[in-house]
């Protein structure tokens, strides 16, 4: 075991893992985090704590992670390169690990120009790959980024993300391989609506044998309305929402929309579960945490752990 988190444990044991997500508040209202943690803890193994998502300033992810931990929800602390340089990130991680955080997810981060402080100076001292490699080296090589010795080292289970729908498409499995080479232990993917494209990507991933070196958690989430579907299709960078999904959402009565969104999500999960190389599901409820329980139940992912995911057996 690298970090000994519940997530790591489940994955190593070959259990089909479910993770979810907690968005920190735009205030010091700790109860927001605690409530979400309580809401999710029975449905997911661990929850991502987002780091100023979409470039909007919110409560620090490490702090929220600690609160989630107190509520019995294992946090996966997100770390982005947008607003901290390699010094800040390393010191934060030392603190996080010291306080008992065991999972970290390394991201590039959304550009500040998309957020609520567009005039701030974008940092991007590192990119997500370099970040992943740095965290892995802190743990495995016991080294700071500059090569200095780090002892004792932070024991962190290192995650990274990949967007199978980003362009150029041909490069996406290559980039995944790079992340695994950089040291990613697990991968969470972008929200999947275009199953066809995801299937193609997974094929490439399997062709390269990457699925045998990393745990891939497929990203899903319920859509709340046709408007939300269109918004995600047209406005959210890196999202691929096919026309038929929009049509399906538009085809039902307004008050039935949420139900339909959950239905689509569940169907997606069921398709994903059958795919070779998928080690779990990452449910992003996007401020609709109440839906997670229903999804997990309807999709038959409960009780946790559900079953051994036969196709996943990473040899590390």
């Amino acid at each position, binding site marked *: 075991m690298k970090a000994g988190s519940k997530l790591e444990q489940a994955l190593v044991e070959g259990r089909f893992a479910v993770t979810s997500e907690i968005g920190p508040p735009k205030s010091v209202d700790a109860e927001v985090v605690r409530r979400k943690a309580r809401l999710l803890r029975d449905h997911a193994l661990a929850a991502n704590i987002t780091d100023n998502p979409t470039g909007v300033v919110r409560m620090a992810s490490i702090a929220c992670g600690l609160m989630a931990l107190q509520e019995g929800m294992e946090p996966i602390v997100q770390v982005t*390169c*947008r607003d901290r340089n*390699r010094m800040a990130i390393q010191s934060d991680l030392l603190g996080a690990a010291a306080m008992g955080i065991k999972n970290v997810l390394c991201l*590039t*981060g*959304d*550009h500040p*120009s*998309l957020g609520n402080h567009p005039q701030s100076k*974008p940092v*991007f*001292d*590192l*990119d*997500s*790959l*370099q970040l992943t*490699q*740095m965290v892995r080296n802190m743990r495995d090589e016991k080294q700071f*980024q500059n090569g200095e010795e780090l002892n004792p080292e932070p024991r962190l289970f290192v995650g990274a*993300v*990949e*967007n199978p*729908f*980003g*362009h*150029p498409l041909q*490069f996406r499995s*290559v*980039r995944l*391989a*790079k992340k695994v*080479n*950089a040291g990613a232990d697990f991968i969470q993917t*972008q929200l999947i609506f275009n199953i066809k494209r995801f299937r193609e990507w997974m094929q490439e991933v399997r062709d390269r044998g990457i699925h045998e070196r990393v745990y891939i958690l497929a990203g899903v989430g319920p859509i709340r309305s046709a408007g939300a579907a269109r918004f995600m299709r047209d406005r959210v*960078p*890196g999202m691929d929402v096919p026309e038929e999904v929009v049509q399906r959402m538009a085809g039902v009565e307004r008050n039935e929309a949420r139900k339909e969104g959950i239905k689509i999500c569940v169907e997606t999960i069921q398709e994903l579960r059958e795919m070779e190389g998928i080690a779990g599901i990452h449910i992003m409820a996007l401020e609709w945490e109440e839906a997670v329980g229903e999804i997990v139940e309807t999709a038959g992912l409960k009780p946790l752990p559900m079953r051994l995911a036969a196709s996943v057996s990473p040899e590390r």
Partner: protein
Amino acid sequence: MIVGEQKPLDEIRDQISPFKKVLILGCGTCVTVCFAGGEKEVGVMASTLRMAGAVSGQEKEFLEATVKRQCEWEFLDQVAEQIASVDAVLSLGCGIGVQAIAERFPKVRVYPGLNTSFLGMPVEQGVWSARCAACGDCVLGRFAGVCPIVRCSKSLLNGPCGGSHDGVCEISPDIPCGWQLIYDRLEVLGLLDTLEEIVPPKDWSAGMGRGGRSIVREDLKI
């Protein structure tokens, strides 16, 4: 070349509001070529400011001059007399020009008329685009001649990020994804496999964020 654009007129007018007599000083090099501070722009700026003054009832006197390069003292000396005769200088040069004036004429008030935007080139007549960050540690060789520092919004060295779509950047459909450009060039050159290597964190110490960088060539000194 250095690419700049004129500051908003209100900002320029605010800067020079205390002064009665102002020299508008153009620069005949980069900023002429990017239509921000050449002789023509000096004329347009002077006329605009005179009119703006007339409209608001603040009569001001504006002198006009353009030197070959504002960043050379010798050229600045050619307009020393005019500079001496005014209350302030509005420089339509780049930030270098403004500072050169400040250094050469320590007692003169100098204000920038331009925002120095980037190092770049015209991609078509009337459109300029950033190409270089003057980072002091060129990595173009690795990226098929396309700079990831400037052309990727996040300066990723292991890009593209997940926001790249249809060749444009996630932050605006008007910005081409630098990494798509790199990818395409590498593909043409048959060098796509080089992308599989992980590029280590960049040494930023050679570039921005260090005051007073200098280059010294002893052999050229007089």
